[in-house]
């Protein structure tokens, strides 16, 4: 075996330029796949992280039908104290759940005493909200001192609105909202912070304390219309979704349908489709890598067999079994693949390291200067390498098989 590897490697060395070109091609392919998946992976996790960690949470629980009519932020689908108790009991029992935050989402009017405009607001419990959306404080462009996210009587205003309405920190503003019965109520609040807007649903919402929301909407008891849930591990998404669905399966409404609906962030954010598209692109780049490896290795190996007919005939004549001849050419093709993927991985690591030193920043929609921190996943390296090695074995199989089936006499007659 060792001898087969030795002969295969020496044959590769014998045609240095061809070996170099072929493995360079494979190297470039591997580099493309690894860099692309690393950078898009960084982009994806940055965006997904923003979405889940500063806004949506990983999962949300609502009353059935709420998400379908979320655009008008209905109040008649609020979760009642009993229902909230049920939901919290279920969430408390799940070990995968890190935190959850009940919210009252509603629409209202925002006035700076000169002008009035529409605003969408989240009434939240600051402590629970911070645990559930830990990146929310990071979105604060300007903020008052103190570690609390929000105190009763204060409001976090979305950036665009703040700019358009020319409100500053500490300004007093009025929020007017219609409650469930159709009557109108108003409340004055102090601007505690300005929030950076991000893409996706809820990315341009304001925040007030949940107690203020209840007062404003004249809700007497504990109520909410949304539960945002944060998981310890984002990978548990589907598992927890299934567990929650199972846990709530027994809770039926009057029509005999499930009382609650559970959505993952993927269902709530349009970014999920962008992420999917990126995955599809990664897939096609991998397909291209396969094609490159297949064609180049096969080409080289067909040439190798063709050129070395006489040698093949000779070693067959002097007692090399067909299996060994097959192995010889397989190992040769395989070595090309291994060489290429090893070089590709090395170059990718170097490129990623270079990106660490000189970070890549970009703008996405209204968000400026997002910084990517690409990393190379060991899994991705493994997948790309295994792919290349497998495909190069596959590509050498036919030429190797041909070599092993050659009649020594016929083969030796060739020049």
């Amino acid at each position, binding site marked *: 075996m060792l001898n087969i590897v030795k002969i295969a490697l*020496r044959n590769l060395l*014998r045609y240095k330029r061809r070996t170099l070109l072929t493995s360079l091609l494979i190297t470039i392919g591997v580099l493309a796949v690894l860099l692309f998946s690393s950078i898009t992976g960084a982009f994806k996790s940055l965006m997904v992280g923003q979405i889940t960690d500063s806004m949506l949470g990983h999962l949300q629980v609502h009353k059935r039908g709420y998400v379908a009519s979320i655009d008008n932020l209905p109040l008649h689908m609020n979760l009642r104290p009993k229902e909230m108790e049920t939901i919290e009991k279920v969430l408390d029992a799940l070990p995968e759940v890190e935190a959850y935050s009940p919210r009252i989402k509603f629409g209202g009017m925002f006035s700076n005493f000169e002008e009035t405009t529409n605003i969408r607001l989240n009434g939240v419990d600051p402590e629970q909200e911070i645990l559930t959306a830990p990146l929310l404080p990071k979105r604060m462009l300007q903020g008052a001192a103190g570690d609390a996210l929000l105190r009763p009587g204060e409001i976090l205003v979305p950036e665009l609105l703040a700019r358009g309405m020319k409100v500053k920190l500490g300004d007093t503003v009025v929020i007017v909202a219609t409650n469930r019965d159709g009557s109108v109520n108003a409340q004055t609040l102090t601007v505690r912070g300005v929030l950076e807007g991000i893409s996706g649903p809820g990315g341009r919402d304001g925040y007030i304390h949940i107690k203020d929301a209840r007062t404003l909407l004249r809700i007497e008891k504990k109520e909410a219309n949304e539960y945002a849930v944060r998981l310890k591990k984002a990978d548990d998404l589907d598992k927890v979704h299934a567990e929650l669905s199972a846990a709530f399966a027994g809770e039926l409404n009057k029509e005999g349908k499930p009382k609650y609906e559970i959505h993952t962030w993927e269902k709530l954010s349009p970014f999920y489709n962008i992420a999917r598209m990126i995955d599809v692109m990664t897939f096609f780049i991998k397909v291209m890598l396969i094609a490159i490896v297949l064609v180049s290795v096969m080409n080289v190996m067909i040439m190798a067999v063709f050129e070395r007919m006489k*040698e093949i005939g000779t070693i067959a004549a*002097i007692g*090399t*079994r*067909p299996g060994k001849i097959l192995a010889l050419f397989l190992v040769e093709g395989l070595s090309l693949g291994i060489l290429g993927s090893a070089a590709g991985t090395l170059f990718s690591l170097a490129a990623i390291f270079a990106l660490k030193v000189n970070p890549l920043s970009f703008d996405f929609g209204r968000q400026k200067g997002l910084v990517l921190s690409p990393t190379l996943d060991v899994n991705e390296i493994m997948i790309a390498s295994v792919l290349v090695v497998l495909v190069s074995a596959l590509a050498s199989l036919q030429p190797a098989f041909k070599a092993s*089936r050659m009649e020594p*006499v016929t083969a*030796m007659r060739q020049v």
Partner: protein
Amino acid sequence: MSGKSLSEQEGLNSVPNAAARISTEATITRDPAEVRVGSAAGTGEEKAMSLVESKDLTKTYQAGEVEVKALKGISFAIEPASFVSFVGPSGSGKTTLLNLVGCLDKPTSGQLRVVGTDVATLGRAEGATFRGRNIGFVFQDFNLIPVLTVFENIEYPLLMVECCGARERRERVETLLEAVGMADQKKKFPSQISGGQKQRVAVARALVADPKLVLADEPTANLDHETAFMVINLMKSLKKERKTTFVFSTHDPKIVGEAEIVYTLEDGLVTNLEDRRAGHA
């Protein structure tokens, strides 16, 4: 012919000279089995077993529409430790015959036993193993493996037959390197040595696995006269030393002179058999 050498080995007294009998009776081949049984009577069947036995061997090539009858019925026997040559003009069937004996090709009809095995029964992989164990080859254009050094080329058959450990391999290769006078060149690659040197390496490679039979198809055709003689004499002395049977083909009359037993091939038939040792006996 071959029966002679066997009887000599057995220490028997002179027996009728088979070769002489054939060549005097006719220039047509005789059934060698018949000859052998007659000449080696009393030595026992197993011991009398020839290294190569051929009976009515034919080989027909299909070249497109035309059939080429390369061998038209050849019978002979080769005994262990002999130095045999097939001579004849180009196209007489020497290569075809040696390919059959070397189990590189299958006869169209007739019988061929090599080292006790009917070659027609050997499959592709079996054939390779069989050749590796029993037959050494020396080719006209040397056919060394270009990516292996002289040492590694000689070692190669040992790795293929998986005969022995690294140390024994080394010893065997060194011994042969010494025997063919190439010890000082062992680290060179084939492209760095001359034709005569290459053929000496090839002879060493053919012998390293201790085959019973070494086949050489025109081994000197690409060498100048002096070198050709050296290579033939090398084979001859190795034959003596190791009791290996050498069979080579040539159309060079001067080289033929070195052979002990000479078959003349013409147009796919053996037309003459000469046993030079008979004269000495």
